[in-house]
């Protein structure tokens, strides 16, 4: 009696209205923070609101942002990879070392990309094939890759040839090339994740891997694929950084893995998988640049900057959890 009454009530509960579905999501919060950041930074310093300056500042973290887009997909699938920043450094060191040793430039780039692929494969082998927790595996490989980079490069920096320098000074319709690449990769991955079968399957694996397996989804293959793509993209990002800086050292983007995870979290990706969007990470990458650039150009001390970034992350995580709790399907 009571059972049937309750189920009747449940059936009568109204569906979420369209505006609710569209607006009450973590990306909306990221977007609002972004607007808030823009306005706040403009008040902080009269030098901030200059499109070319903001774009130029974005190129400084564009490489990491591109990797964060792929990392978002890995996190949605229920895994994590903390080694991409170390991968960037090692791939860039291998690339620079190869070309310094006389390898033709295009071949050296391929060697760098293959190194990234191999690093992704090692992560995939241990996390997926050997079924070890990816957080532990990639903390291990993060230290391992960084260590190898130091073995190869030592404490010195390796120059890259002049013809390879300056990816950030190439402008396409007034926009620096790294920013164009970032937008392009975001659109591509957004489409893959949002509109394709594989995209759907990534969400399903992350939500409930056992159910996904029963539904006939080859979870292992998809996850291995994601790790491999992340490896190659990290290597490409590492070489983009080398082109921007003009030299490579083993400490390239040291600690960058935290910033990448931060971007995904700020964009509303759920750390335990199953939820998140490319749009969210895309917006979060801009949010981080706006906030830190605004504070830097206002000559605020790093201590204040770190505090503000910490508060941002806490706000984002609370809001994300709150929104997900309210919109449980």
């Amino acid at each position, binding site marked *: 009696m009571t059972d049937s009454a309750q189920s009747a009530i449940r059936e009568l509960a109204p569906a979420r209205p369209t505006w609710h579905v569209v607006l009450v999501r973590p990306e909306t919060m990221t977007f609002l923070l972004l607007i808030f950041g823009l306005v706040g930074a403009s008040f902080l*310093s*009269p*030098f*901030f*609101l*200059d*499109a*070319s*300056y903001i774009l*130029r*500042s974005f190129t*400084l973290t564009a490489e990491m942002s591109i990797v964060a887009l792929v990392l978002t997909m890995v996190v949605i699938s229920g895994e994590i990879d903390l080694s991409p920043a170390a991968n960037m450094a090692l791939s860039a060191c291998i690339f620079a070392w190869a070309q310094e040793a006389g390898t033709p430039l295009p071949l050296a780039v391929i060697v760098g990309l293959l190194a990234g692929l191999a690093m992704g494969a090692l992560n995939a082998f241990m996390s997926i094939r050997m079924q070890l927790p990816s957080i532990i595996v990639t903390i291990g490989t993060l230290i391992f890759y960084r260590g190898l980079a130091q073995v190869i490069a*030592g*404490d*010195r*920096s390796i*120059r890259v040839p002049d013809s390879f*320098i*300056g990816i*950030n000074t190439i402008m396409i319709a007034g926009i620096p090339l790294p920013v164009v690449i970032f937008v392009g990769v975001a659109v591509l991955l957004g489409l893959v994740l949002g509109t394709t079968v594989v995209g759907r399957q990534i969400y399903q694996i992350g939500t409930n891997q056992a159910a996904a397996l029963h539904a006939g989804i080859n979870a292992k293959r998809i996850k291995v694929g994601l790790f491999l793509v992340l490896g190659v993209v990290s290597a490409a990002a590492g070489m983009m950084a080398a082109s*921007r*800086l*003009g*030299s490579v*050292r083993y*400490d*390239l*983007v*040291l*600690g960058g893995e935290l910033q990448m995870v931060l971007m995904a979290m700020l964009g509303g990706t759920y750390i335990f998988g199953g939820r998140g969007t490319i749009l969210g990470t895309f917006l979060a990458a801009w949010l981080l640049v706006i906030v*830190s*650039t605004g504070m*830097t*150009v206002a*000559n605020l*001390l*790093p*201590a204040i*900057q*770190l505090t503000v970034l910490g508060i941002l992350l806490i706000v984002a995580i609370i809001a994300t959890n709150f929104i997900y709790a309210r919109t449980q399907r």
Partner: protein
Amino acid sequence: MLKKSMIAATAALALSAGMSAAEDIDIVFVGKNTGNPYFDSLTQGFVDACEVIACNFEFVAPATAEATSQIPFLEAQIQRGVDVIAISPNSPDALNQVFQSARDQGILVLTVNGDITGNEQFRDATILPTDFTKVGADQIEMVGSLIGYEGEIAILSATTEAPDQNFWIEGMNETIANDPKYANMTLVATVYGDDQPEKSTTEMEALLANYPDLKGVIAPTTVGIAAAAQVVQSRGIADQVKVTGLGLPSEMREFIKDGTVEGFQLWSPYNEGWLASHFAVGLKNGTMTNEVGATFEVPNLGTITINDGNSINTQSALTTFNAENIDDFDF
């Protein structure tokens, strides 16, 4: 469109600023990282100078001293349109491209307390504390005077790759080998504490264990000398092993006071800031020229010469700190 309104706003701002202070030079100093007492002293030199000459000064620094962490700060200063960027570079080459774009905007780029060796064409001049070619000889003389120019000595350095330390150690080796004054001194070991207190302590302990007849230790790094002094202090062997090197007065004060260390050396970072601001303002006002061989006067420092490679030294020899003068220095 945005850019145009930005330029207008900047121009308006410059106008209003121009009314209050006549053409002050905007100088910013980008430190290696925040929370470093050495740079507090250097910064104070800039601050004091800008109180007596026509400049506005600001200090910025990243939280960490890794190679690329200064780049966003440099970009921000370019955007602010400062006149002079003084910087203690965290990398000898990762900053080249940013220096280039700063100088393209007409900004004077000075490296202070460290240079971008091998990439000198990307900065206008460098201001170094002292003539680094004499540091090795000065340090050997220092340790020699402490041990009576006789016996075994060792070096406790920073990392194996540290360019400054390696250059000085080379100078020490040459001095010992070539100067008859030091003929009775032997350099028995050079060890590396990686500028980490724990590792430096371990290396110092190992030196004492391996060379029981050791008379003196030179630690040409602030971390190393403090660690070495700590070991000697806790073992109470200050009369057998003399520790000297390059150290910060603030960190070495207690060891000088209790007699663990009789003397050590360094330069005055304060003078670097003082000189850099006078030089920058002089160049911008046209009263000085940035040419090798040119000389100019700086109050309290006397006549300064621009050496090869547009390199300027604030003092010709190291300052020695001991029980008599240690209280005069607070960095």
